């Protein structure tokens, strides 16, 4: 298979694994009597396991599930860190607009100013 395509798949699977594991941790840590995390966590675990097996199939150097998990998480986090500047620049646009936009007239705040 094409090396670029394999790398693309690593990033895709890695992003999925990072996000899914983060959501699983979130459900466990933020447990409360009204939450029903059992079914989501079970299916998320199966989907992560499926991704790990896919990584093992794609990469000959990856042998065990634990190594595959470390590899997948690493690839996912690397991908997130690399693309974060794109969102940073996008947010800069909104911050710039917020910085130059004049404050809208608010009668309640005007009352405070009058005091």
């Amino acid at each position, binding site marked *: 298979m094409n090396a670029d395509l394999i790398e693309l798949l690593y990033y895709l699977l890695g992003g999925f694994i990072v996000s899914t594991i983060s*959501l699983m*941790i979130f459900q466990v840590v933020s447990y409360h009597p009204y939450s029903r995390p059992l079914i989501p966590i079970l299916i998320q675990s199966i989907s992560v396991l499926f991704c790990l097996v896919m990584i093992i199939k794609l990469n000959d150097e990856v042998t065990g599930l634990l190594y595959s998990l470390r590899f997948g998480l690493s690839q996912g986090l690397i991908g997130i860190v690399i693309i974060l500047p794109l969102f940073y620049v996008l947010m800069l646009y909104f911050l710039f607009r917020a910085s130059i*936009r004049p404050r809208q007239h608010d009668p309640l705040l005007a009352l405070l100013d009058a005091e």
Partner: protein
Amino acid sequence: MLIWLGFFLIISGISLGRMGPSFKRNQYALIFVLLGTLCILIPKSNILGIVNFGDYDSFSGHQLPEYYLMNVTYNFIPWFFTGFLGYYLALMGAPTYWKTRYPQLISGWMFILISLYLYFEYNFHLSIKEVLLAFSSFIGILISLAVFAILVRYVENSTPLDNPAPELTDEEKELVSRIISKNIGVDE
């Protein structure tokens, strides 16, 4: 393994930070996040003298998968924290909720410009192709969120509704009105 402990602690801290009412978040959230960040920074400072990410895996003989991640992370930290500080200051100075505070606004934008400079200083080796390939991790995240949303929707829909709550007793009504009166500052 310290980096994964750090990852776990940061995600746990953020999750704890979402618990409770907005005016009183979980008190351990910040501690978890700080500990997690420390776990990620320790290998770089080599305080413990036990971690060397240039090493190879003793079992498989391959380079550790965390090696490249740590390099990317250490190139990420300088511009990210400078940018975060810049954002914070610029938002404090922006006229969104109150009057424009020029010292914060101007210093915030200066920090943001410095962060952009630091980004190019530390990440000059990144190619457009690499950024485009890495963008697929965003698609992976979107798929994961979509699966989670579908699962939550399924669980919520399959949970039977509780019976309607019984009407408040006189004692409960009195208690509620007393609490409301106390909170809005009206004497009974």
